[in-house]
C-alpha cells in the first residue's frame, strides 16, 4: 500500500469514527478530534501491517497509539478519556472475522468458524490491551498516591490532593 492508499483508509476511518461519535452523543466540538484519533489509529495499524508485522501485533500498536493520543487529548480538551479512546478504536473492530464466524457456523463448517472466531477474539483482545497498556504507561505514578489508599473509601483530607493529581 502506498501513501495514497494509506491516506484514503485514514479518510474513511475519520468518517466512520465521526459517525459513531455522533451516535455516542459526543459534544459537537469534539467530533472532528475523535475522528482524527480514529484515523491515526487505523493508519498506524495499516502501516505496521504493511511493514510485515502480524495483524494482532499491528492492531495492538494501533490501539496503543489511540490510547496515548486519546489520553493526551482528554487532558488538553478537559473531556472524559472515553470520548477519544472508545471512538478511536472503532475503525479497528474486526468486523469481517466476526461475520465469517457466524456464516461458517451456520453452514456447519465448525473448523473454519472456530478459526475466524479465534482471529476475531485475538484482535479484540489486542485492541483492549493496547488501550490498557496506554493507560498503564500514562498513569504509572498515580495509582499508588496516598490520595486513594483503599478503593471504596474516600476521605476528605485526601480530596484536594487527589484532584490535583487527576487533571483530566
Amino acid at each position, binding site marked *: 500500500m502506498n501513501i495514497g492508499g494509506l491516506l484514503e483508509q485514514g479518510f474513511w476511518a475519520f468518517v466512520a469514527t465521526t459517525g459513531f461519535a455522533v*451516535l455516542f452523543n459526543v459534544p459537537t466540538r469534539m467530533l472532528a478530534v475523535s475522528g482524527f484519533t480514529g484515523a491515526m489509529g487505523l493508519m498506524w495499524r495499516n502501516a505496521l501491517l504493511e511493514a510485515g508485522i502480524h495483524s494482532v501485533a499491528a492492531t495492538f500498536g494501533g490501539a496503543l497509539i489511540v490510547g496515548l493520543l486519546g489520553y493526551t487529548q482528554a487532558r488538553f480538551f478537559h473531556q472524559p478519556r472515553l470520548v477519544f479512546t472508545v471512538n478511536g478504536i472503532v475503525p479497528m473492530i474486526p468486523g469481517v472475522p466476526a461475520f465469517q464466524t457466524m456464516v461458517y457456523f451456520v453452514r456447519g463448517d465448525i473448523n473454519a468458524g472456530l478459526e475466524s472466531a479465534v482471529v476475531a477474539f485475538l484482535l479484540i483482545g489486542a485492541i483492549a490491551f493496547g488501550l490498557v497498556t496506554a493507560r498503564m504507561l500514562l498513569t504509572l505514578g498515580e495509582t499508588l498516591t496516598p490520595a486513594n489508599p483503599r478503593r471504596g473509601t474516600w476521605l476528605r483530607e485526601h480530596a484536594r490532593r487527589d484532584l490535583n493529581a487527576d487533571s483530566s
Partner: protein
Amino acid sequence: MTAASASPDSPVDTAEPVQRLSREELSDLVEIMLQVGEAMLESGAAALRTEQTMAQIGLGLGADRVEVYVTPTGIIATAVSGNEQRTRVGAAGPLGVDMAKIGDLNQLSRHIALLGGSLPAARRQLAAIHARPRRQPAWVTIPAVGVACASFAQILGGEWIEFAAAGVGAATAQAVRLMLGRLRVNAFALTVVCSFVAALIAAILCQLLDAPRPQHALAASVLLMVPGVPLITSVLDFSSNDLVSGVARGALAFLLSLSIGIGVVMALWLSGLQVLP
C-alpha cells in the same frame, strides 16, 4: 487551573471551620451522589470513573468520609459526617451511551470539589444536566450512522456498491432502533431485530446490484450494533481491579454480540444470499 489548586502541598482542612451535616442533609447528599452515579453508569462510564465522580461530589458537598461500591447495575453509597452516617442503595440501568452527559457530570464534580457547593444548588445543577437535550439530535444519528457504516465497507475492502448497501441498511436499522428504543424494548430483542433489518436490507441491495463482495457490505451494515463501549469498559474495569463490573459488562457485551449473530443469520437465511466461497 484555579487558585485553589495552586498550592498542592498546603494543608487544606485545618483552615476551614468544621461543619457537621445534619441527618436530613446527609440523606440528601447521599441521594445526590446516587443520582450522579446512576447517570454515569447509564451513560457508559467505567466503575472507577463513577466512583471517583461520586466521591468528589460527596466530599465537596461536605461529607467527611464517603464509601462507595459500584457495580454496573447497582450502587451502595455511605456518607459520614461527624457521628452521623447514612447508607443508601441505588439501582441503575438500562445501560446506554451518552458521552456528553459523562463530560457534564465530570465537570459538575470538579466544580463541586474545587469550589464546594450547597445541596439545593447541586440538586438544581443535576436536574439541569438531566434536562439538557442531546447534543446530537436523534434524527442526526440516522444519516451519521449510515455514512459511518458505509465507510466501514470501504475500510474492509469493498467498492461503491457495498458502500451504498451497507449505508442504507445501517441507516434503516438506526431508525428502527430509535423507534424501538422509544417503546422501551428489551436490549437483546432490539439488537436481534436491528441487526436483522440491517443485514436483510444490505443483502437484498447486494443481490439487486450484483455486488462482487457482499460479505463486506453485510459485515459493515451491522457494526452499529456492536457493543463497543461495554466491551472496552469491561477490560478497563478488569485493569482497575473491578472484577464484578468487568465480568458483568463482558457478559453483556458477549450476549449482545450473540444477538447480532442471530439477527444476521436470520437475514442470510431469509435472503438466500450466497456469501464466502
